[in-house]
């Protein structure tokens, strides 16, 4: 069965966005663009039990969906499990979707319900909040999931990637230790011959810098738009 032509090569003016580069993140993929008609064709084929076509749909939405869910998942909830459940539910209900309408909105609505279900289930465990964090943050994340567009997360992700590239080498290394290698604070302190407290403060400062950089970039993009 022939797969549809690559959306990157065939669509005039549809250049992929450049990704922020960290020398170690050389494998970063740009967000693939797909036209609505390409997507509609894949949906129609998926409705006829074409799993290759549905696989392309999953591949297209995998990153924005997972990042959106990750940014709205309260502590203790597994974002990738929610993302999987979303795609599975979408496949099951494909015959309910009208081709030609906004698949993106439909998919993210399913994701919201899946996230809400799991969050509600977790909240019903009476000692959940003593283990996983304040209830108010859950409510704020839920409010944001209902009111903010999924594209905002994608923009924030791209801005964050760019801002990581603007950190100094030492800063990027510390962030990588923390988020990629998941090295404990004590080991980071040993490696750098500094105290744990100093490392913790350094991480706080780096996160602050990244936050300011991201907000700045989003403000510029918002102004340009």
């Amino acid at each position: 069965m022939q797969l549809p032509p690559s959306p990157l090569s065939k669509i005039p003016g549809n250049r992929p966005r450049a990704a922020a580069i960290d020398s170690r993140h050389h494998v970063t993929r740009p967000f693939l663009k797909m036209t609505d008609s390409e997507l509609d064709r894949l949906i129609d084929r998926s409705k006829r039990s074409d799993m290759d076509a549905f696989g392309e749909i999953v591949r297209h939405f995998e990153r924005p969906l997972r990042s959106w869910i990750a940014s709205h998942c309260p502590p203790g909830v597994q974002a990738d499990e929610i993302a999987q459940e979303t795609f599975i539910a979408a496949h099951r209900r494909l015959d309910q979707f009208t081709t030609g309408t906004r698949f993106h909105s439909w998919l993210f609505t399913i994701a919201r319900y899946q996230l809400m279900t799991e969050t509600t289930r977790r909240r019903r465990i009476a000692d959940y909040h003593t283990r996983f964090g304040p209830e108010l943050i859950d409510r704020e994340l839920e409010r944001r999931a209902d009111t903010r567009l999924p594209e905002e997360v994608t923009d924030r992700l791209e801005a964050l990637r760019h801002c990581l590239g603007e950190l100094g080498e030492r800063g990027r290394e510390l962030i990588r230790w923390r988020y990629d290698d998941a090295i404990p604070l004590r080991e980071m302190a040993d490696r750098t011959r500094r105290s744990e407290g100093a490392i913790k403060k350094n991480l706080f400062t780096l996160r602050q810098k990244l936050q300011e950089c991201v907000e700045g970039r989003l403000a510029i993009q918002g102004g340009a738009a």
Partner: protein
Amino acid sequence: MNKRFDILWNDFLEGELDAAGQTELQQLTTADPSLLSVAADRYQQHTLLGFIHRENPDASEAFIADTLGKIPASGESFTSSTISRIHPPNIVSFKKRFLPALSAAAVLLLGFILFRSIPSSSPAGIPTAAAPAVAQLILAEDCEWHPDFLHLYEGQSLAAGPIALKSGSAVLRFEGGAELVLTGDTRIDLLSGNSSRLTRGRVVVRADNGAEGFVLETPASEFVDLGTEFSVRVSPSGSTRLQVHEGKVSADSKIITAGHGLVFDDSESKTSRSEEVAADAPRFQDMIRRANPRERRDLMLAYEGFFMKEGPYSATDLNDGHGWAGPWRERNTPDSDQSGPLQLAIRQGKMNAPWPVRGGRLGALELPSGHHSIMRPLEKPIDLSKSGNTFISFMIADGSAGSSAGDIVLTLRSSRQSDRAKIGFGWAKSRAPLVRSSDGKISRGTRHVPTGSTIFCVGKISRSADGTDLIRFRCYNPAETLHFLEPAEWDVDTHRIDLGAKLDIVEITTKSASSICLDEIRLGPTWRSVVPLDLDKFQ
């Protein structure tokens, strides 16, 4: 910016925030809502940093492949995939002899029958304990299940799959919080913790308090609960009737509000017509009232009511009740501080219980101040290696209001592995309900048991075939009603690795500066077998 908030939130992100810090953080964000927005911004950036650093093409492809692998295969592949999973030698020889001569339809039937006959796997499509639970059967009243499907029991956790009720009434509580009552000849498929498919029959769905968004699929259309109560009937011919009793439902690209409904004359046309809902159309509560749920004391495995004359007793004098293999006896531990026989007593009128129990009014056991332990053997042990539920309930009155009350724990343990396999329910000086197990772990709730009141306690042990046990505990103060449906929220809700033992001893341990009264110990397989129910107070 609030420096203290910065420190606490940073500790939270580093996984170093303790309980006191949690409380302080909650207080700061409550007092200053702008901090909540800052906290959420920082948390979201934190998760996105994690996402960026986990991202790589291999991980993405693995996610995609894993997701596609979990999507159920199409009907055409059922036969071949079912046959290919069957490997026992006697089945192979049967296949070799007879398979070439069978038609495709017979192959399908053969695969179904053989698949059902394998004892270690479940019949096709039947919810299994090994798959994750999407719902729980919290009420089963006079239920007769369709003979082609498994008999389900009240309290059972259910994975995705079909439920076929022939008669009677049943209530399901989904993991997402929605509750669904089904009656009569009804078949539904459990799809997820937040969705189900009604193939035939009648259901009433109630979804509120965060459970909104429940999806009910039918042959004609899909209904999405927007915070409401609604009923749906699907007839054998495929006609479907939706009635919204409260709130709103999304259906057929419309929003249907309370007092209104839709009728689909058949599943093929997909067109609907509106109708008004009669004010007296039966609702969720009505359906359950009609089922007339009652206590199931007939299912109790053990009961102790201390129905004896008031006065002093030794432990071995107390040999009443049923389901026991002997009287109570003292257990002298290195910690206990009694010298000489323990002086117990039966007291009357010591408990002030608003629930429909005779507890306290016709005798309660009084343990004196100090550190004491008594135990009694069960006639029928609780086998933790077999799947199922065990509930235990008891009533406690300890200390006077505001007094410094003590510890009390009711423990189920094994006589063969002394001080090893055990599960304890109770509270310590902090007054937080707790569950204590033999792996040394103590799980505590966040509420506090008041002093000077009679407390009704219920513990639940759920055992599953895959080896994980779920242990729950809830304490009710006199202001709380005991519902006939098991609660959605428990004070303690914790998982354990399979303990695998047989618990055959009930032990009471107290450590208090004042006397403690205990009564109405019940052990049974369902909520309704151990909880006294006042249906006049049904909500």
